[in-house]
């Protein structure tokens, strides 16, 4: 298994741990170039199939990295990034170094949280008022937020928030207030996730 499956990019000390990784791997480790590191596990293909189990493992490894050493910043990769050699991977780290540094700077000390507001079945809800109420509570606390697809007619709001770890408790409390006063709708609160929605680094090197 000479190929390397990449979970995310970190800065500073390498990360190493054992766990359930993508495609049955158990060792997660770091391939470094200067101070930048790609957190990887070994894999026997450069085109891994995205099964539910492996997608979950990808997320769990990223969460483990985020919780490492009391909280590490990580630029997450989408599922499926695999490179055929360490050299190819290091070339990407070298080529995209400024972009990774900027992205790491943006997400340092922050986590992504997801909020979906879903109307109860057949409920008559003023969607605009609900969205306004949620924005009043959450936007002042979050460093950034982005809108996600409203993939269901019952979804009134679907947003991701980038929140400082220090503001997490305040954000939780704001969610609790929204849940308490919810009438005709439900609040689905998820995370913390690696900040997928707030980094935009495209790797275009041959893999």
């Amino acid at each position, binding site marked *: 298994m000479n190929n390397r499956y990449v979970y995310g990019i970190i800065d500073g000390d390498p990360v190493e741990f054992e766990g359930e990784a993508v495609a049955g791997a158990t060792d997660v480790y770091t391939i470094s170039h200067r101070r930048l590191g790609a957190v990887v596990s070994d894999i026997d293909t450069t085109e891994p199939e995205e099964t539910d189990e492996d997608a979950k493992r990808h997320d769990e490894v990223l969460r483990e990295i985020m919780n490492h050493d009391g909280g590490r910043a990580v630029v997450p990769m989408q599922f499926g990034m695999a490179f055929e050699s360490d050299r190819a991977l290091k070339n990407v780290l070298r080529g995209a170094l400024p972009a990774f540094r900027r992205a790491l700077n943006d997400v340092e000390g922050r986590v992504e949280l997801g909020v979906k507001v879903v109307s109860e*079945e057949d409920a008559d809800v003023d969607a605009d008022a609900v969205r306004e109420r949620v924005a009043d509570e959450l936007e002042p606390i979050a460093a950034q937020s982005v809108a996600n*697809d409203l993939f269901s007619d*019952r*979804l009134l709001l679907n947003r991701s928030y980038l929140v400082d770890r220090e503001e997490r408790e305040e954000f939780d409390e704001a969610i609790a207030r929204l849940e308490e006063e919810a009438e005709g709708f439900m609040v*689905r609160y998820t995370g913390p996730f690696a900040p997928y929605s707030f980094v935009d680094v495209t790797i275009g090197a041959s893999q």
Partner: protein
Amino acid sequence: MFVLDDLLFRPFVGIVDAIHTIALDELYDVEGLEDDLKENQLLYELGERSEAEYRRRKAELEAELEIAREVHERLASGRVEVKS
């Protein structure tokens, strides 16, 4: 007469092809099926759909999505034969 017939007929063939493509797009709506998959997951997470129902619906939607993606690939490569 062949040339005249051909010229007169060509625009209609073009329209028929276009309508057929739109119909296929609607019938094999990849984006719609992807949304349905996400909604199925959401309803399961909210406890409104049982695990058995969630899994059944997921398998059904994934099978439909696979066919829809294949049809779109064929449409893009011009390998879908329009028969009337």
